[in-house]
């Protein structure tokens, strides 16, 4: 069952919070993972792997580099749900 963009954002925010302690409501669409949220590449990969499990999508290594903002990640997950 496909989730809405809002649901995906909420789910992703929860994963970010679990991994980094960043407040879920700070995880907004326009925010950059590295520049705004200060998430390093190792934490980012943990979030990506957990997102694969949570949303049932595959996010290959080459794609991770393209996920600059939260919106990039939400859009990728939303469009690739099984």
């Amino acid at each position, binding site marked *: 069952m496909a989730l809405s963009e809002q649901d995906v954002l909420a789910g992703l925010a929860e994963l970010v919070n679990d991994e980094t302690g960043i407040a879920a409501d700070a995880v907004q669409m326009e925010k950059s993972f590295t520049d705004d949220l200060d998430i*390093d*590449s*190792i934490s*980012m*990969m*943990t979030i*990506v*792997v957990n997102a694969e499990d949570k949303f049932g999508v595959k996010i290959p*290594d080459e794609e*991770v*580099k393209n996920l600059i903002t939260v919106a990039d990640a939400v859009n990728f997950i939303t469009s690739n749900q099984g």
Partner: protein
Amino acid sequence: MKSLKQNDPVQYSRIYSLGASRGSSEVTNDEIAGPIDSSDEWIRQRTGIVTRMRAPEGQSLMDLAVEASNEAIAKSGIEPSEIDAVILATISFPYATPSGATMLAGEVGATDAAAYDISAACAGYCYGIAQADALIRSGNSKYVLVVGGEKLSDFISPTDRSISFLLGDGAGAAIVGPSDHPGISKTVWGSDGANWDKVGMTGSILDFRDGKTEWPTLVQEGQSVFRWAVWEMVKVAKDALEASGLEPEDLTALVTHQANVRIIDEFAKQLGLPETVVVAKDIVETGNTSAASIPLAMHRLLAEDKVKSGGYALQIGFGAGLAYAAQVVELP
């Protein structure tokens, strides 16, 4: 027609003793942060490393390997002349031939031992232990010296932000021999050549010879390697534990390749070991020493009395290749 005579197999093998040698220069994060536009805080947060030990000019890979080997031999109860095989796991011996192992065998007095190098990067020591176990139990060799030794500082770039700042120099040695009880479990090992380009060198020596590249140095795609090292290697660790017949609570220690504290922490979390299992983190003070990292980390746990001889340790090496190997061993 006559049939061929075979060796009399031996039932079990174990590690008798360990030896360790680290580069004699302690290099702090502050000393290397400048050229990579970083800081002590960033390096500690990103990798857990506080210092790395490096061998200065005048201290060679062979010096490190000999020192570690001599300690292991002295503690083993056997004479060097009794060693039947010398295996040196390394990526940094600076000659294509002759092997480092032949030089090492001569230096430590392992006269006429079979001697060869293994190039399996951070899995090298566990590959060497697998080989020693097989050589002994097949009846081919009685005592085997396995050394993981590296002078990685010969192959790093001070401006490389992907891996160079993690790396240290050192050697860890083990004497392996026959045992009256199982001391080494079945090795789970393999490779993933499709990802050959994820960790390696900036060029080949031929590229360097032909002026196409600078001196080849180590480099990696950190994010991809992190994902593989945690989520794929945890599966290997679970397989190795199952193959050993043990449950997680039967372990005394987890000794992973000392790649990065973030990898070690996530690995231990994913493996779900009870808190009683000691997790080796020698990398904090030694750095990542590739093939040397597991024996150095295990030696440290024993030397600092964090674990007792006779307990079981799950050791797993993984890295460039990509190559990996894991087994459970009885702590010497």
